[in-house]
């Protein structure tokens, strides 16, 4: 894929109807997971605005950086994807995400987080395959497109309407960009520094050492668990089928 995709959320037009939430559940057949409290996207009606809790699809994802088995990977076209068969269930990603997004589904032993409907993005050029949440939004509050174009659009809208932008700099920048009247942190979005896990490691030699040591430790500790995990996932998938 030549393009890098992104989602722009203009909360001025979001009503909190959560049609995006349920569409995501149906699109990805997540009914049982959602019934137990895990979701890929959900809108929380907060006192000062609407908080969309969903993967920000960081440019340099912390989850990917800390994952000892490369179960999480940043694609070259935007989304951060998760491979349950590679996951050892260490939940390091859950702890590492500065946006508090990945959720651990104890029943299915999987991480739950948005994929930007990667399975739909094969024919974006055709104009029809956009993420399910974007397709369904009754007010057009969610916009899908090329990252650079959406960034330019976000900056223009923010400038014209005195809005706050969330996602341009947080954790080094993300592929979900949010426009809000209120300061996002007031609404409920986490305050996230610019630095990513990777950039912090590069800045600090000791950090590199510490990071490498941590990854190594996790890798060694997880080897046995990893093998078990594959069998566990395979068995679970068979039972689902």
């Amino acid at each position, binding site marked *: 894929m030549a393009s890098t995709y992104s989602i722009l959320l203009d909360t001025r037009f979001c009503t909190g109807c959560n049609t995006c939430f*349920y569409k995501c559940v149906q699109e990805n057949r997540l009914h049982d997971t959602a019934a137990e409290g895990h979701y890929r996207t959900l809108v929380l009606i907060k006192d000062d605005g609407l908080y969309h809790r969903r993967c920000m699809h960081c440019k340099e994802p912390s989850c990917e950086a800390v994952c000892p088995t490369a179960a999480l990977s940043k694609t070259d076209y935007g989304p951060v994807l998760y491979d349950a068969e590679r996951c050892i269930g260490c939940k390091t990603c859950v702890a590492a995400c500065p946006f508090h997004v990945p959720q651990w589904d104890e029943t299915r032993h999987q991480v739950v987080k948005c994929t930007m409907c990667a399975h739909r993005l094969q024919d974006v050029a055709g104009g029809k395959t956009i993420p399910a949440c974007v397709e369904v939004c009754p007010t057009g509050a969610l916009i899908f497109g090329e990252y650079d174009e959406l960034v330019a659009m976000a900056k223009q809208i923010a400038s014209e309407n005195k809005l706050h932008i969330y996602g341009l700099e947080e954790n080094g920048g993300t592929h979900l960009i949010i426009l809000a009247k209120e300061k996002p942190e007031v609404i409920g979005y986490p305050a996230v520094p610019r630095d990513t896990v990777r950039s912090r490691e590069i800045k600090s030699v000791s950090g590199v050492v510490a990071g490498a040591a941590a990854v190594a430790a996790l890798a060694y500790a997880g080897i046995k668990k990893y093998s078990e995990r594959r069998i566990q996932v395979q068995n679970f998938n068979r039972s689902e089928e």
Partner: protein
Amino acid sequence: MSVSPPLRNLQPTRPFGEHPQEKPKYIIKKKVPQVCARACECDCAYNVVVGVDRITGLERALTIEGRPEDPVSRGKYCIKALGFVDSLYDPDRLLVTLKRTNPKRGLDQDPGFVVVKSNDALKEIIEKLKKYKREEILFNSPGDPYTNRLCRSLGVTRSDQRTECFGTHYYLNSLMVTNPPNKYYSSTYTVTHSLWGYDYSKTKYMLWFGFDSFSKLAKAGILNHIVEGKRNGTKIVVFNPVKTPIADSIASEWYPIKPGTDLAVTLAMINIFLNEKLYKVEFLKNYSDAYALIDIETKLHVVDEKGKWLSWCGTHNKPEPINSCDNPTLEGGSFSFESNGRTIEAKTVFQLLKESVKDYTPDWAAKISEVPAEEIARIAREFAQAAPMVCIPNLKRDAAGPNYANSWRLMHTINIMHALTGSFDHEGGVLFLNGVKIPWLEDVDPPAKPYPPQPKEPVDYRNEFPVSNDIYQNKDYSAPGHYGMVGYGLYNTDKIKVVFFRSPHRGLHALIQPQMVEAALMKMDLVIDWNLYPDDTIYWCDYVLPAPHQYEESKFDIRQYYPKWPCYVGGSPVQQPPGDVIGWGKIAKEIGLALAPEYWTTDGSQDRTKAIKGDMYTPALKAVGINDMNDFMTNKNGIWIDKKPYENYKTIKEIGYGRPEGRIRLYIDEFANVGHDPLPKWSPRWTSSEGEYKFSLLVTRAPWHMHADPNFINNPVLNMLTRKNFIDCIWIHPDAGKELGLQEGAEVVIETNPKYMTDVPRPVKAKVHLSKRVARKDCVLLFHGMGHRSKLLRNGVYGYRDGDLIPQKNPKIVKQHDPTGMGWVEDVYVRIKKA
């Protein structure tokens, strides 16, 4: 034990499409056009996507896909539509008929249900119905074509819950514009008792009096238009004690008005319009009764021998027919003249309106409503300046609905504001349905002889309300019933011995103070329910008949929520009804043919082979060049639209009072006849804050719920969403919580002021959510729809029931305040105490 290499699964990056999350979870097999007829009245048209779920391998309805060609939804739909897809497979759906074996009713009793064949049950029910007089039977049902035919042919009372949603609007609209509506509006799948929609995407200025309830947050059919308008610069001013997410940003301005005082604001705005001459003279002259004369003594319109209104001619100084007078006088007077040997003193409607609102200044309104006077005045001026591209939308449970004892007055003022600004039947304002007509059963299969009379003293006390009863008895039998009093009648009289609930997934939950109805049902001989789910109602029922899911039915509908263009849409069944499900049309026909066959055959005979066909769709389709539903669905994909330009003020002439030169009526003679105000005056709500009973009850519902429908309430995915957003809690302002010593999540008991709920009170227990979205310390926000107790709904029993706190009304009290006799659903003050 073999040990695999530890990094055996760390493969290089895959080509696109190979990652597990790049693979779709289902394969689409077909897309079935449908119209969303039960989630709300937007009636969005869309496709139900059917395919194979790769996890389960089952073929089923999976999701929804939009239909951009539908002028209402424009390719959008809401969370409720998605919920309907999954509820097709709700394991708790009622698929067989249940018959009680334990005669003891009540929630604490096991009904001892046994399964019987639906057809056999229906025969048993018919035999039992034969034993009762028509005055002893109540159908608790909306006025759909088949129920109307059934109740009229049997001569039994029909009363329903539609009052809650549409009643106030309906009756005021009938009295001011449509008189009667039946000839013009259609027997659509969901009759909303309205003839118009709002041009949200083109309007320049909107005033919302509680219109932005939480339930509106998911009405995709109007939201997509509202947002287009907003993007194009529409100004939206919201008055609501609750700060909804729409008030956060889509609204331009928001005022936390004191509940039940919206009327003061509209009266003050009319005062500004009139005093500053901010009205459309030409509209008033040509399309309203503003120039019509009112006899000061009789308080009625002065009419000529043909019944036409008269105006005062400024040239000839005498009354002349309003349509032919070349120089009618707008204000001044009184005017004196002789008619039929009597001296009449008369003033124009406009003059009387001016006198009626002269004391209602913005300062006066500010003291009552707590909206600043200067803002009221400024907004009124801005609104008038943007006219006629302005509107004040009101559809259901907004402040002009049946919420307060003064809501009918508020609705009256809103219609007057639309008339003064010339926004009725105008692009950018109030769009009138035009160019479509789905006939009624009475139109296609007229009864062979007049129907028997209705009971003289119906259990819902309609007869005590001559204004609305006249419409119901003589003009529109589908008119809303008095649900705010039917429970009172069932409980306090012994008139009724048989109750037939006909309304899937509503039943008891649709009634305010259901505990009063439950108590009344204990003494009934026979209770029947036709339902999609085994909800609370069945614990009082002798028979429960299974209803089909909305996606198991064909649909044919107009586009009432955005009627800019004449348009029909249709839907096909996604699947055949499973089990022993029985349709309402069949139930009605079988009962009708057994008990009143002369009204159910084409020739008035008792010959079942001549049973009426009831084809209401073909005539509508033929009128636009389509053969029938098969042709419509097969060759037109279920949509017909004529995108002709909207003709401003054309439909008023066709449907208004005095048609074919129809006009809007500002002055309502019928109210004068029963001692109520023919032009709006200020009146406070029925209840007032007293002592600990100081919290004004506000009721809304989650965007993902529809009424108390188990299609959504029994859905575990939506229940998770409900909990995450504290919808299962009562909401109060944090400062109110502090004063009561309540922390977030505290258990409380909410109790209605016993002065206003004298019989069968049922306080409600709930958890508290402290939220600034309840903008006033004197309010409590409750969410409607929860509180099911049926043990047969495995996911549906949670939360509280708001209806328990809302009293059924004594008709003697209601009559004093409200000639329409509506529900006053939020005219309630409650006490909140720690549990």
